């Protein structure tokens, strides 16, 4: 066991992890933040996507040590208190989450996109989500939700 210090969703956290842990394992098993999902554990599906220093990254192939001293944001940290981030709300309104297993990762990719590009085109949304596999939706409703959220953020 090693001790790792992480800043997650604004909280300074300390946890004991085996030295080989990935950021995803530390989040899920060390801190109990199970919102980030494991779909493949090898960087292929995007279900584990979190935001580190403003960039969407794959936490399953990120050694936990690389996240030390950085700002980690997960699906649990997207809402502002009880107020949902518009993209979370629009996911519900647009039916963008079916089984919902890809959803935390896609939300993180979407928020990272909207933070740097508040009014993305559909093509830009498509490109930004190309690392997140969704097996349920065919992606259309996800684009709709991100577009609607962008319109709310930057009307």
């Amino acid at each position, binding site marked *: 066991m090693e001790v790792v210090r992480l800043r997650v969703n604004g909280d300074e956290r300390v946890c004991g992890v*085996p030295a080989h842990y990935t950021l995803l394992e530390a989040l*899920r*098993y060390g801190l*109990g*933040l*199970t*919102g980030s*999902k*494991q*779909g*493949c*554990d*090898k960087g*292929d*599906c995007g*279900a584990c996507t979190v935001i580190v220093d403003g960039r969407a990254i794959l936490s399953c192939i990120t050694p936990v040590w690389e996240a030390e001293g950085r700002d980690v944001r*997960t*699906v*649990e940290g*997207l*809402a*502002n208190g009880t*107020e*949902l981030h*518009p993209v*979370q*709300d629009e*996911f*519900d*309104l*647009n*039916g963008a*989450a*079916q*089984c*919902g*297993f*890809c*959803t*935390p990762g896609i*939300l993180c990719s979407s928020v990272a996109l909207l933070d740097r590009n508040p009014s993305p085109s559909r093509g830009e949304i*498509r*490109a930004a*989500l*190309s*690392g*997140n*596999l*969704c*097996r*349920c*939706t*065919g*992606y*259309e*409703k*996800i*684009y709709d939700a991100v577009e609607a959220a962008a319109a*709310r953020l930057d*009307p």
Partner: protein
Amino acid sequence: MSSRRESTQHSIGDPQRNGSRDGESGLSTIGRPMRKVDGLAKSTGRARYTDDIRFPGMLHGKILRSPHPHARIVAIDTSRAEALEGVHAAVTGRDMPVTYGIIPWTPDEYPLCVDRVRYVGDGVAAVAAVDEDTAIAALDLIDVTYEELPAYLDPHEAIAADSGPYIHEPRKPGWNGNITKTVKLEFGDVDAGLEDAHIMVEGDYFFEGTTHTPIEPHCAIGLAEGNGRLTVWSATQVPHYLHRELARVLDVDPASVRVIQPPVGGAFGGKSEPFDLEFCVARLSMMTGRPVKILYTREEVFYSHRGRHPFHMRYRTGADREGMLTAVDSEIVMDGGAYASFGLVTTYYSGQLLTAPYQMPAYRFNSTRAYTNKPACGPKRGHGSVQPRFAFEVQLDRIAEKLSIDPIELRRRNFIGADTRTVNDLRVTSNGFLECLDEVERASGWKHKHRRLPFGRGVGVAGSTYITGTNYPVYPNDMPQSGIQLQVDRSGRVAVFSGASEIGQGVDSMVAYIVAEELGVPLAHVRVLAGDTDFTPVDLGAYSSRVTFMLGNACIDAARKLKAQVQEAVAAEWGARPGEVLLAGGLAVRAGDTATSMPLRVAFNLAEAMYGTLGSTGSYNTPKDVHGTYRGATIGASPAYSFTAHVAEVEVDVETGFVTVEKIWIAHDCGRALNPVLVAGQMEGSAYMGFAEALMEEQIFKTADQGRAGLHNAPSLLDYRIPTSLDTPALESLIVESIDPEGPYGAKEAGEGPLHPSIPAIANAIHDAVGVRMDSLPFSPPRVWRALRAVEDGRGDRVAGLRAAGVGGAT
């Protein structure tokens, strides 16, 4: 910023989404875009899937898997593994020597192999340890001695075998143990129909196997308590069947077994039977008294499979001068993999489900499912009927081409109609197929595109039908297929206890919409507790597109019984007739006198005072007069059928063979869309999955020449290519509502039917674009490139000439 967000924030129950009562349908919640009851949990990360659940003292299990495609287990010794620090228990097949199978007539697998392994990846032993690392290390210490047996990787070779060792013991002496099932059925005089036909089109088709690939890997947790109780949490689509099999195989009183199904992260048929991990976590917990979890790796998901069978198909289709079908004949060999799974049903479905939406005067099919030493195939979205549909709709396109009839027109002419029986005696009620054809024709601009686009670009059409639930459960019984229970408290809240499985399709939301509609309560006052065999009535599971129709009807039944009690109590209070009491918008209102009203909470309290604690149950069972009486007539029977048509538009690069699907228009007759957003989501997800099978996906295994026989070719999400956002075409949903007479508010299925036409529509579009007939899946660049070259070289026997015919197939 925060005020701006607030100003546009929608919430459940706000008028913008709930709307007012729909004048035309008389419905207020049903038919409208509504939020999902689990939407918030899923968009905040709070939904707890099976692997998100942890218990104090929980152990982690791992399963040792066979490296051989076919071998005898000579000896197996777990003692070195058990001696490893941190290992708490090990099990082998001998600890659970009871066969099971989702179909009670074909139980042919053990939780762990007892004396024989039948595919690379077959489970032979399992361990439980303090953590995953220790469990993995323990697997290396299990000593297994195998004696290799010859492996069958090709279904034709398996069928041709005339002596053992077969993959399974023959059920009768002299039989071939490599065959799961053969079905031969004939309706009408097929030979005469083909003889009399003006034209007969004949073709061989190959559908490559594909797998479900839910993003959530299978996961289960077992917890045995000292009092004999056993609880299993599992990412399953069939908690009821799992409940039965756990009790039977582990020899535990069913009343002591509880199955809890947390939200499932995608399934598509891939989680619709018991798997080794569920038996192993239960057994390991019974041995250790500790909770035990097993989470499949992504590789294990690929090996557990139960996905689409590879089909080798030969079709002969006859038609008269006008393009009316005269007879259809098929021969199908199915590559089933190592175990039966749902294979008995698959074998029937491969023929039974082709007989609509077109009239067939005569029809014959001869289907055989072979065992091979590969992971077992089973039901994947559109079970058993996606493969024949591909072949048949390409056959129709060829007939249209030969007779110079527009392919949409050809399909219209052969339309079977509503309220009729198919040639194999399936009862068809509502049928919106013609509207589906109209919709895709209009929306795609078909008339300006078919045979009119420049060379390399084309459009194709296809149609299909699918069952709305299978008419009979997998084990014979007369009890309802779906049950529901409602309970009302004094605050006006209604609880729904539903045995159905939420796998992303929205069933938990659907029952809430129905309760809101029937009782007039706001959606926010409905709670749904689902998928827990200790507390919810039986629903048979999320398979065969049965849930909306069957559970929806059960829910209406329960809600109306409750409503009658509330109306009675309020009517007594007002001195009115019960029929004059309307429940809507959170109120009880007197008809014709809207000034007389009371909050529903008060109405519920009056009813509780009159009848005691308020609750009701509802159930649904299928009608039994919807099929013929021949052997097998019940398989393929359904209380209703959905209908679909697609147009696909493609661009083909003739230099590389690369096919780009630009767009798919999907028109689907779902009876009534209970929530159009969710229905469109099912349609788009289905078309996406069909597109993926058409162009990209292959669940294939290496032969001995390619390294190691039976090894999965690409068991990862990188190499088994499922479409990303950049690969997926634009998808446009066109909902058609035929209002089924028996469906809940007229609804039928939407989750599987809309997959079928994607594949043949794309094949037919490729023909329109470049004049080649693709008869083998997937239409990957090498296959398309070779087909193009074959035509150029004059070797394309089944194909209209490419350049000679004038570009784009325009003749």
